[in-house]
């Protein structure tokens, strides 16, 4: 077991974890923040995407110990006082979700896309979403939401 400390959604957390504990396991099983989903467990689907020091990362791809000292934001950390983050609001407005399983990863990825490409066009957004799989929407409205979010 090894001790790991990080900030998750603005709160300092630390725990003894097995060195092989994945960041997503730490988030879901230890912190019980179940908004971050495991869709494929093989780094393909992106449902587990969180922000690590502001950058979108697939949390099933890194170990919890690799996030030592990092500032982590999960889907639960976006809305403030019941008010949706602009990216969340855009998904709602543009009907960018149906079952909602991929949505946390899509929203976290979307924020990072717009951070890096403030005026992202459709082609850019579609290319950037390569690592996030949705099986409901056909992506059309997800792309619209990410492009039009007032971030």
């Amino acid at each position: 077991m090894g001790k790991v400390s990080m900030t998750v959604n603005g709160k300092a957390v630390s725990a003894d974890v097995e060195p092989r504990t994945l960041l997503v396991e730490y988030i879901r099983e230890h912190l019980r923040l179940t908004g971050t989903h495991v869709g494929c467990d093989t780094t393909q689907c992106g449902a587990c995407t969180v922000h690590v020091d502001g950058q979108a990362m697939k949390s099933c791809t890194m170990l919890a110990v690799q996030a030592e000292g990092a500032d982590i934001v999960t889907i639960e950390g976006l809305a403030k006082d019941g008010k949706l983050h602009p990216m969340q609001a855009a998904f709602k407005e543009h009907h960018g979700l149906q079952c909602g399983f991929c949505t946390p990863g899509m929203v976290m990825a979307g924020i990072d896309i717009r951070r890096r490409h403030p005026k992202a066009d459709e082609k850019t957004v579609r290319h950037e979403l390569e690592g996030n799989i949705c099986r409901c929407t056909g992506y059309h409205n997800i792309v619209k939401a990410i492009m039009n979010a007032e971030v």
Partner: protein
Amino acid sequence: MSTEIGTRVRRKEDYRFLTGLGTYTDDIVRPGQTFAYFVRSPHAHAKIKSVDTADAMAARGVLGIFTVADLEEDKIGGLICGWTVTDRHGEPMKAPAHPALAKDRVRYVGAPTICRIFTSILRSRRAHTTRSGSKGAAKRAPSRRRPRS
């Protein structure tokens, strides 16, 4: 009623899905909750010569094991066909036996063979991704989860 036609209808479920507050089956936690983990066939077609449950019981966190013998003993039938159709002569389609856990033979990669019950989801993953220790059937089966460490 007519006022709804042509107007946008806001989904009631979006807020919880967008804020990570949805509850999918994987998110449920109940007191004393246990977890089923299926040992699956690594072979496309193979006879099952024997099942060594003693080995499979040895892993940490294992509460129990079910094989097809348990299902039969409890008179739990196989998986049923959702609905049957008739052929052009009106004869019902043939619905072969489909035991929930493999009996005598597996017929595809991933066919469930044994069900192990664990105290925690992490334990179940670890038991199925650790190669050291006992050489149970579970160790030979492919696992859903592969650690990348």
